[in-house]
Each structure stands twice: as structure tokens, then as C-alpha cells.
């Protein structure tokens, strides 16, 4: 009961509703891995400022879906447009989109041979051509936001998983993206470290960032999401507001999935 109240009050604070402007558009997207049809006719519109949680059983194509958005995977059919730029083979478009979309990975993917500060300033200095001092200042600001400014000169291998993931989030934020994609950000973490990462993501949501999160953390979905999308077998089976989604699931597949996972 205590949890529900905490979540509802956090929800109320985050009710800054998403705008109506569409920032990511997926229309009729189909993707195959060889002969395997992994994304089937995906239609999705994400609005600016919206927070979407994508859930589903493994192999349902949720990671593939968000990886198509920044071209880490190529879709064979359909249209993907991010902030008005169509995602196709044109390298300029891909670079444009990648500079506006930040991604956080399940396995953190920090660069182990660089310090935390160097990890954060690498892209701003070499892609945005920022002077080093300015990039380091911005990096330190983000490190303070994720609450680990004292780790700036450490190497990723010297930190815990939760700290590494928070550095990864800060690294993505240093490029000032408009959209943040999260691919199971807490799945590789020990349970006691999940909370610190989720807190950072909740705080990020409060600033109005458009977020697309693939996760199994349903508590996070209830607190932060405007929309929960359930995927199974490459299709979007159901999408709804979290309240409705968890309490009144419509499809049988959704009901089956919800019965199998612990809702905490």
C-alpha cells in the first residue's frame, strides 16, 4: 500500500503531459533477420516529451524496435522518421538522427581504456567540436546530476554496475539529445543497484525528456510512463496508459504475460 501511494504521488508530479507534436514516427515497419520476421507491421507515433515503456517476453522484438530508431539495425520495409528526418540509407540523415538520439545499453558499453570524464567528453569534443574546457564543464554538471561527480577520474572497471550505468546515462546526455532510448538498462544490475539507476531515469523524466524504455521494471512503468506498449512475436499487441494496462489488460496474450511476471 505504501508503494502505491508513493508511485501515485510521483505520478502526479510527472503529469506534465506529453505534447501533441510527433517526434518519432514508425509506419508499416517490417524487419527480417535472414528469414526470421522479427518486426511485423509496426505502427507507432511517439510525441515530444512522452515517456513510453516497451515490455514483452524475450524474442518479441522490443530491443530490435528501438535499435532500428537509431539505425543500429536496418529495417527492410516501412518508414521511420525522427524529428522530421527520414531514416534511410543516406548517411547524412543517419548522422543527424544519431546526434539527436541518445542510447543507454544493457551492458553499459563504456570505453574501458578512458576515464569517466574522457568517456563523457569524447563525443562533444570530436563530434560537436566543443573546446575541451567547455566539454569538461558540461560533463561535470551531468556527473553531478547522476550523483557521482567524485568518480570523474576513475576508470569504468573500478566502479560498480550501478555507477557504470549512471555514467552511461550521463554520457548519452552530454550530447544534449532530444530523445533517449533505454535498452533494458537495469537488466544486468544487481538488485540493490537497480534503484539508483531508476531514480536517475525518473529525475530525467521529470525534465520533459522524450524517453523510450525497454524494461521489465513495472514499478518504473507505473511511476513514469505515459504509455505502456506490450510486444509479442514482433507485433505491438496492446498499448495503453499504465493504470489501464495493468488493471484492465484487454488481449489474452497481455493477460498471460502479466500473470507470469511479478508486479512490484
Amino acid at each position: 500500500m505504501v508503494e502505491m501511494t508513493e508511485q501515485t504521488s510521483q505520478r502526479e508530479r510527472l503529469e506534465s503531459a506529453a505534447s501533441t507534436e510527433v517526434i518519432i514516427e514508425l509506419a508499416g515497419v517490417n524487419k527480417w533477420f535472414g528469414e526470421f520476421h522479427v518486426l511485423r507491421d509496426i505502427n507507432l507515433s511517439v510525441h515530444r516529451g512522452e515517456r513510453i515503456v516497451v515490455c514483452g517476453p524475450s524474442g518479441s522484438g522490443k530491443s530490435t524496435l528501438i535499435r532500428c530508431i537509431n539505425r543500429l539495425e536496418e529495417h527492410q520495409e516501412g518508414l521511420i522518421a525522427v524529428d522530421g528526418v527520414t531514416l534511410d540509407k543516406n548517411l547524412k540523415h543517419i548522422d543527424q538522427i544519431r546526434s539527436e538520439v541518445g542510447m543507454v545499453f544493457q551492458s553499459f558499453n563504456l570505453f574501458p581504456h578512458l576515464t569517466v570524464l574522457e568517456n563523457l567528453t569524447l563525443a562533444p569534443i570530436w563530434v560537436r567540436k566543443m573546446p575541451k574546457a567547455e566539454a569538461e564543464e558540461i560533463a561535470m554538471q551531468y556527473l553531478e546530476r547522476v550523483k557521482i561527480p567524485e568518480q570523474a577520474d576513475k576508470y569504468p572497471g573500478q566502479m560498480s554496475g550501478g555507477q557504470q550505468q549512471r555514467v552511461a546515462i550521463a554520457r548519452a546526455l552530454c550530447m544534449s539529445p532530444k530523445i533517449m532510448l533505454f535498452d533494458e538498462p537495469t537488466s544486468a544490475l544487481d538488485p540493490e543497484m537497480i534503484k539508483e539507476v531508476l531514480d536517475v531515469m525518473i529525475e530525467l523524466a521529470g525534465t520533459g525528456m522524450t524517453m523510450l524504455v525497454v524494461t521489465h521494471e513495472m514499478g518504473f512503468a507505473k511511476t513514469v510512463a505515459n504509455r505502456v506498449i506490450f510486444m509479442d512475436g514482433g507485433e505491438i499487441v496492446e498499448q495503453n496508459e499504465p493504470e489501464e494496462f495493468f488493471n484492465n489488460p484487454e488481449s489474452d496474450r497481455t493477460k498471460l504475460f502479466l500473470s507470469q511476471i511479478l508486479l512490484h
Partner: protein
Amino acid sequence: MTAIASDQDTGQKKAPKIQISVLSWLRENLFSTWYNVVFTVIGIYIVYAVITALWDWGFVNAVWEAKDRRDCFNINKARGQPPGACWAGVTTWMTNFMYGRYPRTELWRIDLGGILLAIWMAPIWLPRVKGKIIIAFSVVFLYPFLAGYLFSGGERGVFMQVMVSAAIVMLTAIVVHSLISLITGRTLPALLVSALGLAALSEKMQRNALLALAALAFALVFWWQSGWLVPEVNWVNWGGLFLTLVISGIGIAFALPGGITLALGRRSKLPVVRVLSTGFIEIFRSVPLITVLFMATTMFPLFLPEGFILNKLVQVIVAVCLFNACYMAETVRAGLQAIPKGQYEAAHAMGLGYWQMMGFVVMPQALKYMIPNIVGSFIGLLKDTTLVSIIGLFDFLSMLRAVSQDVPWRGLHYEPIMFGAVVFFILCASMSKYSRHLEIKLGGGANR
């Protein structure tokens, strides 16, 4: 049921010390069973027999100074010893071993070249010196011109004069910079900026001022060295360990960048680049080095435009460089494949371009996996250069074998070859040791 709970952290206890005495180690490892005792005794006897035989032949009965081989035998006889090693042949031929048929009055040029290389590269290992990458690049791109002129001599055209001047300026700057860094901890540019009172200017103006200063130094050196000439020494007279080191040095310097280029080409998405790189690598790897050397010296001239003549030494060096670049390419490719895909993805997701990703993220991580193989290739390259003796270049090995053809030293086979083996062992073992040191320092691999 009563709960079992402990609130206190009992703390760590010290691990027990295990004492192993020498006797118990011997008993356990060498004399544990009766057949182990037998093997140990036989092993000890074999080691003893070999070592005493070598020691007697190589040191006790050896003759260090003699006029010729017959003289060696006579000295042994006079001393009442069985025949020992005739090291006198090696010592009298030492200059030939080291320098080949290089004119004896000009040997100082080779020594100077070696000393300059040592001075040029030393700052890379000094801890307080900054700008190590610039120093390394300057060694690869400027030193060859300076050394090339020192070794061959003769008239030099404008291009050569420019490069030699640039090399001299760079070397002086590096030496001064290293001394300043060691003593005061500042870099040369920083010192110049404060000494000339330029600190107030913007960064761009400071850089321009320093460049102007460099250009002035260059002009001075150019004027100074234009009157400076050394007599020409034809490459035919280059030989011995000097020639071996020149060929393998150039081969080593080229193999790594060439290998990286070919490896990236092989992994490229552009089909023409990929096919050309793969074809190149596979052809050179399918053919023995000796065949490549033969083909280079006979067929190379056919591919070149009219009137463009390359001397044999250059043909051989080109062949060795290309051959080793191909082997290095496969080593580099293995290292690239060892990098987890997530690193590439994170770099892509951040918007890093291809060369930025390779230079900042992938290569630094991949190189430390490749070190054992890279240094192994270098060691192989050093030893493979002995093949050039077959096509008529008088490298170290051919000098060693030429001793037994010399009239006073007819039949002296073992001593020069053993000497050569010791020299190669020292060179290769040093490289191997250094590679191990690099591995530990860069922290790659299992570090065991």
C-alpha cells in the same frame, strides 16, 4: 525455531604462512618415486655432460687471438689441450660481421646513425616527457631521410636537403624538449611562449608564432647543411648486421601501419576496397618469402615505367614490407574482432565517425590484445631477413658463412654460426622481453 543471527562482522583473519624448505621441495618434485629418481639422475647427467663439453670447447680450450686457423691448432697443441673454439676468426672478422664491406673510414656514419636513433627514441620511454606520439611519428617519417643520407652519402637534391634539414630541426627540438621536461616539467612550446612573452596572445596567435620560429630554425639549418657533404657509399657495399637491421627496421616500421590499413580494408563495406585488400593479403600469405624475394628482384622491373630503375636493395625492402604488412593485417583483424560489438554500437550511437571510432575507441583497445602477435611477427621478420643472403645481398648471415671461404680461416664453420646465434638470441629475446613488459603495462590479456 530460534533464529540464527550475527550482527557483528568478525573481520578478516591473516592467512597461515606456508613454509616450504628446499629439501622438501626436492623430495616432492624430483625424488618422489623410484622412477623419478632415475629420471632425475639421468637428466642431471645429460645437463652436466652438455654444459661441460660446451664450456671446455668454448672457453677453457678456446683461442682468442691467432693469425689463422692453423695457428689456432698450434696454440692448442702447445698448451697441451684438445682443439677448442677458434674465436680468433670471429674477432678478426667482427667489422665485416657488423658493417659488411662498408669503407672502414666511413664506419662512424653508421655508428652516428644508430646513436641518433637511440637519442631520438629515448624520450618515448622517459616518464615526464609529453608529446610521445608526435615523437614516434617523427621517428617514422623523418629519421629515415637523415639516416638514409648518412648511410649512402653523395650529392643530394633539393627534396633530400629539405627532409634532412627538417629531421635535424626536429631532433634538436625533441632533445631540448626532453631536457626541459625532465628538469622543469614543462613542454618546449610552453617554455618558448613564456620566454618570448607571448602568453598574452590568443592560442592561435601563439601557434603561429611558434611555427614562424620553427620555419626560421629550418631556414638556418637548411643554409648550414647545404655545404655539408659526405662521400658516397654505394648500397652494394652495405652488409652485415647493419644491412640486416636496415631491412628489418624498415620492414617493422612499415608493417604495422600497412597491416592496419589492409585489415581495415578487408573489413570495409566498400566492395572494391574489400576485394583488393583480401586478394592482396591472401596472395602474399600463400607464397613463401623467398619466392616473393625472387619475384621482386626479377619481375619488379617489368611493372615499372620505362627508365625507372630500382636497385636491388629497394626491391628487397619493398618485398619485405609488403609481405609483413599482410601477416600483420591478419593479426590486426584478429584484434579488431576481439572487441565486443557493444563498443562499436556505443560509438555509433554517440555519432562518432568511422575514423574517430577506430582511432579513439577500437584501436587503443585492440592493440593491447595484438601485442604478443605483433612482436612475434617482428621477431620473425628479423630472422627472415637472413633470406636475402640467397639473392645476393651480403647481410649478417652471409658474412658469417663467408668466414669459412676466407683463405686463412678455411673450414671455420661452427664459431661464426655460434656467434651469430648468440647475436640473434640477444636481439630476439630482448624484443620478446619488451613485449611481455608492454603487455603487463597495458594490462591486456590474462597477465599470467
